């Protein structure tokens, strides 16, 4: 993983899974993302850090398409997805989670996972009108997969509870599981540990390490630097909408301007 401030992009060995070039996002006069260029290599966890207001979450939203870019290009696995709406990027495997819990509160935990699963014949008006027999095989397959995820994340006993009744940490897990149901090729996590009980933080950390071991590519916004150090193979530092550095945490700690800007203490 390498990054640089726009417009240069430092090359990496192997083809990057995602390349953002000179990406901008302006709100009226505010340049929340101001010419950011990064490359995300496959099979690694890349951290995105920076002070509050650095534009990290905005950048993540622009990558996922939940906010359109004002300028620049985003190439995902060789395809220019800059103009794709969010739902299409998700279908392509570019899946995000949110900074604030975004569970579907009045759906059960299991339904929160099922709803994300692609390739269900009942998930269209035609399929629905054809009746249960038309889609039940898909549904059973998806339920099996969702249950195996729930088991892996230790939430099997909660599958029939409303997601809105879960704790903050459990909602985070639901969101990660929901994203995994889409079989993402790149998982964009927006502060997955924030507001979470320390015990669940450790669980999330373990799950993310497991996912990396399985070859999942993750780009993660995170404030907790020790967590970033433990989890991330490389880190991008943003401040005031720009990338101010990149590399491993150890190398970043040696860069005076980055330490001054963000890593103090």
């Amino acid at each position, binding site marked *: 993983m390498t990054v640089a401030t726009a417009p240069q992009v430092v090359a990496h060995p192997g083809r990057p899974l995602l390349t953002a070039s000179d990406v901008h996002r302006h709100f009226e006069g505010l340049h929340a993302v101001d010419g950011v260029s990064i490359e995300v290599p496959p099979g690694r966890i890349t951290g995105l850090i920076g002070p509050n207001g650095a534009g990290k979450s905005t950048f993540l939203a622009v990558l*996922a398409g*939940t906010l359109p870019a004002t300028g620049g290009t985003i190439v995902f696995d060789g395809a220019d997805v800059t103009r794709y*709406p*969010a*739902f*299409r990027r*998700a*279908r392509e495997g570019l*899946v*995000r*989670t*949110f900074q604030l819990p*975004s*569970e*579907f*509160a*009045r*759906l*059960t935990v*299991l*339904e*929160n996972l*099922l*709803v*994300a699963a*692609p390739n*269900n014949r*009942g*998930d*269209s*008006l035609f*399929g*629905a*009108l054809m*009746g*249960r027999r038309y*889609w039940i095989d*898909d*549904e059973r397959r998806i*339920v099996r997969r969702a249950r195996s995820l729930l088991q892996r994340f230790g939430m*099997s*006993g909660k*599958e*029939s*509870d*409303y997601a809105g009744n879960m704790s903050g940490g459990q909602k985070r897990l639901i969101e990660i599981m*929901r*994203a995994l*149901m*889409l079989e993402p090729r790149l998982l964009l996590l927006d502060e997955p540990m924030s507001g979470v009980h320390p015990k669940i933080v450790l669980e999330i950390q373990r799950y993310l390490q497991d996912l990396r071991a399985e070859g999942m590519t993750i780009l993660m916004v995170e404030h907790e630097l020790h967590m970033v150090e433990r989890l991330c193979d490389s880190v991008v530092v943003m401040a005031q909408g720009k990338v101010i550095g990149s590399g491993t945490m150890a190398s970043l700690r040696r860069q005076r301007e980055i330490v001054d800007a963000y890593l103090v203490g």
Partner: protein
Amino acid sequence: MNTYYAANLLVYAGVDIIACLALNLQFGVSGIVNFSFIVFQAVGAYTAAVLSLPPDSANGGFQIYFGGYQMPFPIPWVGGAIAGGLLAIPVGMVVLRKLRSDYQAIALLVLSIITNEVITNARPFLNGAAGLALVPPPLSDQIDPNTDAYQYLYVALTAVCVVLVFIVVNRVVNSPYGRSMRAMREREIAAMAIGKNPVQIKMTVFIVGGVIAGLSGAILVGFIQLWAPSVWLYPETIILFAAIIVGGRGNNTGAILGALLVPVGFEEATRFIPTSFGPPGLVPALQWVAIGLLIIGFLWFRPDGVRPEPRHVFEGAPVQEDG
């Protein structure tokens, strides 16, 4: 209770059930606050009327309208349903694509008011404020509408439509597609982030709801044989919303219960209040006050309604400790 009164009550109940099932799909399941619902019922009714009426030169030319095709049953009913769906396309394209849900509600309310005003004042189109009268009842050329048998037939036809609509909405609501609708209702941006296209889902729901609303209007106009702007003022939509809120948002049987409790039961019950006291119009005005209080009361004390949306528990789920 004579046959006519019973048939009247049952047909109205059927029409209200159909309308509430459609509105429940839009509002209860998908979260679309369609304050112009009554317009879709009205367009179905007008379409069925002009498809079944003779040309406006008939009957001494006392009313002016376009069309007058004298189509046989069931074409007017099918036409009414199609018209409701067709109207949903441009309205949905304008309202549902860009606006936030609260602004959608306002835009749809305004649409309802504007449409009613336009039809009221543009007389050559659908006979203005006087509306369309002498709409031929379905199959009236084969069975005398002024017989008990015809009343039973009309109730049966309405019941068939109720069953069909119930099957359709039940299939949709209880399918994976219905789950996507509920997810969109809960958090649209998160639904989008997992690959759902909210505009497509909303448009589909809006069109399906429009078709069903149009059918309900077609059934009603065939029975009461007249249709005028005064019967589809925007507060009629509020009554249907009250029914959904009372019955239970997101629950089809709740929508049926709400239709029986509010537009049918509540309105029928208040009809028997003596009108001899107070100034003229006091009791009808109090009916509206009562509807408002009913909505507020339920939202305050029982927001999920009499029959809340069911929790979907899947086969083989671990036993839950709580209900």
